[in-house]
């Protein structure tokens, strides 16, 4: 069979074929194989972290990743941002009738690989098929569960004046890659999503014993939005050095053409770390030696005031105020 039909979501024979022929093949693990209405997880000791996210990206395959990989990484990364060790995820598909079986298999395989890479088990799942036109190809929801070591206190409210701000690599890669594809740009520029797993690098950072205050992945709304949120949660100012923020040449070119600022563009495999000043160099070193952080850089400092805002020291010597975007960026200059 080449295409997904409504029968695949009906709970009948076709559904079973899908589950056993495709999902079990790629996700096999003891808990999933319990085969009951609910999966029973072993006993946890300690605090539990939970995160959920739905993935509705277009296009579903893009340079550097696909919707499957993204839906695992996204949720696992969110768990890791709290300092938790990710253990399990659940998976729910909403698929448009007529979707290619081959593409579904590619996505499922990609999910299986990503889960293996992240060291998480897929412990529950669901598939719905809806009439053609009700959704755009395929939507995926994942929920993740992780366990939080006792002494961990990481959160957006913990930044203090003097702390250093580190970014794990170049910004804007994912957003520009997706934009270029989605809009059918005929560009000579090569852009690739940074879609990647951050839990490994976070594990190593936390292992150094550094005083890590905040971990965030600057996804939708880009670095500017993430930092604005932190500045408000912690009631501090965040001061960036424009020249220190790593941006790929290709991304910069694309942004210049579109009149956009890479700092507002989405990332899918980047990490912002806010860490006590004395630990900054050590953390930077660990990040740089990890494949996900080879372009890591200290990009700024937490300051007392003015509070609740993000600033960029520009190369000509001014301090630009980096506002939280209010929807579409509309021209202000005459």
């Amino acid at each position: 069979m080449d295409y997904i039909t409504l029968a695949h979501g009906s709970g009948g024979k076709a559904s079973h074929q899908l589950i056993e022929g495709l999902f079990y093949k790629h996700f096999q693990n003891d808990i999933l194989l319990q085969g009951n209405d609910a999966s029973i997880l072993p006993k946890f000791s300690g605090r539990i972290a939970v995160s959920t996210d739905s993935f509705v990206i277009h296009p579903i395959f893009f340079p550097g990743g696909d919707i499957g990989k993204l839906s695992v990484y996204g949720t696992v990364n969110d768990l890791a941002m709290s300092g938790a060790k990710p253990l399990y995820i659940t998976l729910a598909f909403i698929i448009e009738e007529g979707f290619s079986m081959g593409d579904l298999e590619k996505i499922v395989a990609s999910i299986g690989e990503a889960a293996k890479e992240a060291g998480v088990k897929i412990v529950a799942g669901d598939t719905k098929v809806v009439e053609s036109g009700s959704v755009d190809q395929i939507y995926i929801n994942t929920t993740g569960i992780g366990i939080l070591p006792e002494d961990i206190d990481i959160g957006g409210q913990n930044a203090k004046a003097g702390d250093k701000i580190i970014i794990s690599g170049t910004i804007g890669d994912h957003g520009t890659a997706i934009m270029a594809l989605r809009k059918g740009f005929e560009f000579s520029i090569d852009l690739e999503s940074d879609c990647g797993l951050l839990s490994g690098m976070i594990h190593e950072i936390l292992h150094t014993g550094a005083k890590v205050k905040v971990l965030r992945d600057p996804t939708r709304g880009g670095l500017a939005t993430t930092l604005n949120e932190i500045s408000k949660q912690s009631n501090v100012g965040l001061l960036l050095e424009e020249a220190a923020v790593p941006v790929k040449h290709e991304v910069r070119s694309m942004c210049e053409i579109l009149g956009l600022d890479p700092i507002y563009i989405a990332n899918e495999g980047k990490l912002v770390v806010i860490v006590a000043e004395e630990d900054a160099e050590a953390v930077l070193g660990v990040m740089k030696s990890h494949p996900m952080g080879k372009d890591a850089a200290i990009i700024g400092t937490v300051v007392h005031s003015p509070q609740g805002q993000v600033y960029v020291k520009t190369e000509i010597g001014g301090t630009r105020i980096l506002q939280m975007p209010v929807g579409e960026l509309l021209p202000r200059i005459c």
Partner: protein
Amino acid sequence: MRNYRRFIKVTGIVQGVGFRPFVYRIALEENLKGWVNNTAVGVRIEVEGNLENLEAFQRKLTEEAPPLSKVEEVIVENLPYFGYDSFNIEKSHGKEEVLTLISPDVSICAQCEEEIKNADNHRYGYPFTNCTNCGPRFSIIQQLPYDREMTTMKKFPMCDKCKEEYKNPLDRRFHAQPNACPDCGPRMWLTDQRGNPIDTQDPMEELYRRLKAGAIVGVKGLGGFQLVCDGKNPAAVQKLRTRKRRPWKPFALMMRDLKTLRAYCHVNEKEEEILTGIQKPILLLDKKNEGLPESIAPGQKRLGIMLPYTPLHHLLFHGSLEVLIMTSGNISGLPIEYKNEEAIDHLGEIVDCFLLHDREIHIPVDDSVSRVVLGKERLIRRSRGYAPIPIKIEGIEETLACGSHLKNTFCISKKDMAFFGQHIGDLENLETYQHFQACVDHFKSVYGIQPHIIAHDLHPEYLSTVYAEKETGDKVAIQHHHAHIASCMAEHGIHEPVIGIAYDGTGYGTDGKIWGGEFLICDYEGFQRVGHLNYMRMPGGETAVKEPWRMAASQLYALRGEALELPLSMEVSEEEKTNIIQVLKHQLNCPETSSMGRLFDSVAGLLGICKTITYEAQGAIELEGISNLSESIPYSYQLEILDEAYVVNTRPIIEEIIQDIEKGVEASRIAGRFHETVIRFTIELCCKIYEKYGISKIVLSGGVFQNEILLKEVYYRLTEKDFQVYMHEQIPCNDGGIALGQLVIANRRIKKGDNKSCV
């Protein structure tokens, strides 16, 4: 003869302008007894004498008031006779409910100038010479009442000689708060670029030597630092451009005297009056010849020139120096520097040396920029010499209007007085934003204003809007172009509905699009958009403002689609062309605009006049500059009707311009015909709106009206058709003027109980 006693209260600008000695003098002339004092509320007088003398005294009080004073109100009460035996000037009083007006900084007077140039005078060569008729005011006042103790002159105790002048009611320096002399007053010194004092016997001689050798000097002036170099030395001018990273924007000049100025520029009577007046703005004047380096104002027909306005400036024109570049001492985009240490920090890389002094500037004030069009002074930047002169508007409450994003100026009011702040600058940086906050705070505290109405622009991302959101009070969001028109209406005290034409760069519209070519029927409460330019796409949003070629490409795309051919004049690469087509095709970050500024940019872009701008409105300014007006055949346009509003379809204009470019018609003729076209459709639209709505008062506002060809022709031709046309004079037509409009509209809306933002 019977004696009477009267109590007289005078309000207005009556402090620090020699008002009390003037009262003293006329009291003596009329043989009256009593006293005069200064309070925060104004000047209070008690006089006794016979009726005839009292009447004469009262007449003189308003008719002969000192030149710098501005009497707002005189209140007279009769009191029972008391029997004073002399007339005295009493000490200042503080406290009472305040509304004294602060005088702007005033250019040096003729007498003081004579003193500093007279080798026999005690103040010969003394750069801080001033008197009751001249000198710093607004920039050094920390609090009211205006008293030396409340100014930055506090730290210079007067010597005996100065004290004597200060105490003598018949002396020119009687109660001149900043009075100073070489023995007791502020000092000036020369330093290298790092602020280390340069050891020299005669700093002015040394400075002269350096200026002649092409040095750039950071001079601490009256309201802030100025960057100065020899305007006749092209290498020095070029060096300043490079170091200031300012490749094209014209520099202002200061010239030794009117005679020097006349050698380079045409000056009419009105212009002479402004140049030599007490406000001394930078005045834009038509060049007479090419006698000065082209790099001062590349591609411009005009020069911005001022005459010396402080003793220090006069001293700079030493030896053969007669033309100096004098531009604001700031890093591009940041506020003017006004503190020694900070200036050394920030400007050290730009200058070769500094001329510093130790009279602190409390509130920085940039130079004002002005010009004369249609026989009237029209301010472009209202700052030194003008701020904080209030505009009187009946019935306004304590309100703060936060102004625009670029060229910000705020306006704050109390008791029928709208105080227009000095030029703040572009609110893109933290430094400028903090400067804005500090100035607002200063005005609030010095006038004792606690605004309960907060007016701001409709644009959600203006920093002035963000500021307004944090203030407490009734917030009123005001459409940008409504504010432009209302500002001009308020300036002329117009109360009935008008046709407002706002030709502008960028303003947030009520439909979420970017407006700027608008015909509004409006009063202070609301407006109806009865006409506008057709919407155009701005590929790349703000980037399209900075790169006029993008607007040109957008217009071509609208006409031709992907098959568009860009004229060679645009100098656009194949790659740029492919990319811009992609952006337009997929409408990624392509907001729509009806802006006249962008229409000018489109034409400037097509003609290749200006691919990328380096200062605001460069494309439009250069387009005006090259226009040849000898041919008056307009291009085609159409007036269409959409949702009950007229829409000017400008696409045929672009179509015919492309054809002209292809035919090889010179850019100057195309530019001329384009101007003619804009003028024609403006007039035609006014006539149509008049026919439909019966309104014949027309108000012109928005930054595009800085275009002189447009302003004059629209004025002449509308007037010919019996329209009454109002244009800005004391309030800038650009975004520096919108705060006044915001203030008036917000007041009216709150009074009507309607603060639901826009119409």
